[in-house]
């Protein structure tokens, strides 16, 4: 029998992101139902689950982009409104029209909107921040490139650079490795690991089960409801995977995952 996961403790103020009783629905079918979770500080956490499990919705509900039916979200122990500046969000690459008239530099500078506001001119310091962010993802040679001319991997790096320019403490990424080339995947994970080493917290919706154990140290497994959360070693288990994915995950696949790094 499935035990319903319930975390009734008050959100830990040291947690970059703690959620209690979060429910979201599009129409009358809940996309997320009564989710509790507590992200560990300075962790790299993967959010995994089958298609339609509410992974992206979870991030959007945290950011207030989709309305919450119920539940609380606390960011570093406080309300979202006062801590928004400490969050950087990387939406799904496919969620925007890349034919938009902008070059790489324009997009990265959007990460500085909070500082530049409505009318302030872009300063040399802003340019330097954008330049540094592009260098960290290896895209400095593309600064004047039209975004529509970039490959999928390059577009994803530009999105990451925009988040880096925000200089946040909590990074929320929606499928950062979807449809990118191997080199970009390596580059992105290197950047994320450096963020973690610098004391930041990284939470990413992830779809490739074979790399979860290599890339992340914590995992959140959801399928509308929270199935499990915790350190990879204790949480990313065949039983939890079966509970999360149900019949969709073949036993053979789980065996392969176990060989690939599960203990």
């Amino acid at each position, binding site marked *: 029998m499935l035990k319903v996961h319930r975390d009734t403790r008050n959100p830990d103020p040291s947690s970059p992101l703690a959620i209690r009783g979060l429910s979201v629905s599009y129409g009358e079918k809940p996309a997320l139902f009564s989710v509790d979770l507590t992200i560990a500080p300075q962790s790299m956490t993967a959010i995994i689950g089958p298609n339609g499990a509410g992974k992206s919705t979870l991030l959007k509900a945290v950011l207030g982009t989709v309305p919450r039916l119920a539940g609380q979200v606390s960011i570093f122990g406080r309300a979202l409104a006062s801590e928004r500046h400490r969050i950087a969000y990387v*939406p799904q690459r496919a969620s925007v029209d890349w034919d938009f*008239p902008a*070059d790489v530099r*324009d997009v990265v500078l959007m990460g500085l909107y909070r500082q530049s506001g409505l009318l302030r001119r872009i300063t040399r310091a802003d340019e330097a921040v954008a330049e540094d962010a592009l260098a960290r993802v290896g895209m400095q040679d593309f600064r004047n490139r039209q975004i529509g001319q970039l490959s999928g991997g390059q577009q994803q790096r530009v999105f990451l650079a925009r988040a880096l320019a925000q200089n946040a403490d909590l990074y929320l990424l929606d499928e950062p490795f979807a449809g990118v080339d191997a080199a970009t995947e390596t580059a992105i994970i290197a950047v994320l690991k450096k963020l973690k080493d610098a004391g930041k917290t990284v939470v990413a919706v992830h779809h490739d089960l074979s790399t979860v154990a290599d890339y992340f140290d914590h995992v959140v497994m959801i399928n509308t409801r929270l199935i499990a959360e915790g350190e990879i070693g204790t949480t990313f288990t065949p039983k939890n995977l079966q509970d999360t994915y149900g019949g969709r995950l073949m036993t053979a696949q789980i065996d392969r995952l176990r060989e690939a790094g599960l203990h």
Partner: protein
Amino acid sequence: MSFALSYNVVLVMIGAGLLGIAAGVTGTFMFLRKRALLSDAVSHATLPGLCGGFIVMVALGGTGRALEGLLIGSTISAALGLWVVQFLKTRTRLTEDAAIGAVLSSFFGLGVVMLTLIQTMSAGQQAGLDHLLLGSTAAMLREDAQIIAAGGALVLCIALILHRPMMLTAFDENFAQSLGLNLRLIDGAAMALILAVTVIGLKIVGLILIVALLIIPSVTARMISNRAHHITPLAGVIGGVSGMVGAGISSLAPDLPTGAIIVLVSSGFFLFALFFAPARGVLASAARARKFQRRVHRRQGLLALAQGYHVHEPYTRKLLQHDGYLRADGVLTERGEDAAKAALRDETRLAYLRRNPVYSEFLSRHDGLSDLSRSFTRDELHHIDRAMETKA
């Protein structure tokens, strides 16, 4: 007389120019947000309010011609139309385009019926009311021009202040929201600006064609520029010039429809950009496609010859002969031999790079067609060749 006329013409031209700038700038946001057609619903929804304003003013004992009263009436009904579009979109399963279609036609139909009723009324001065459909400057008063100029300037200021959040929203609304931007507020402000431009433009452009002045300048600017920061001011300039020139032309004869002429002038700009814009224009695209085709044929031909095959396609042979690579009898010249060998070597290198995922980053610099020496430095090519040798 001639002095008075030219003074009036100048006034109208300035008013139309300011209106055009405001329309071009606000229209850019709607265009980039992919909601350009919403402005069409707004403009058509002004008609019932316009007629309602007239009827109310006449009922109160006036002539029904005061521009302020007409503008207030049209603002109310256009806002109502917008609200209905939003309501249909969020509360029913209708998509925005269907909602726009429904609102546009119902409101306009109602307006036309009211306009017909007004023509039969005995009180009030209804003559000229129908000019607000297509715009006219013949009977424009100085006060009208002042309202238009002041309104246009105000709209422009607000549009410039909101430019950054609007562009951010147009490109990536999820990211904009993650920064705490209120989408409803930004979209609402944009619609208020569209509504203001429509209402201000009633007198000069008329309600049927104002949508053209909102959309055409930004579409034209998009043909010319690839950056939102440039498109907005460019659209303002195109709109402004169209307004001024169109108003000027329409004042040459007494019965010319001002709105139609302004729109035709801006369409002229669009047509010109459509064909002659440097990167996205029809001619430039065709030339680029042609050039690309030639490169493909040349490369394909050289690779075939390098591997000892015959080239049968006449176009390829013609190209290679023209380049001096191929003799008329189908044999490679000395230059052709070299070029073919180089092409084959590049192809072998590419195959090696593709086989090794570590090079995928490297490979993304190359377009898959031109000489590798264009995409890679001599040292890099040397490195590839050495790596291939050691592998072999």
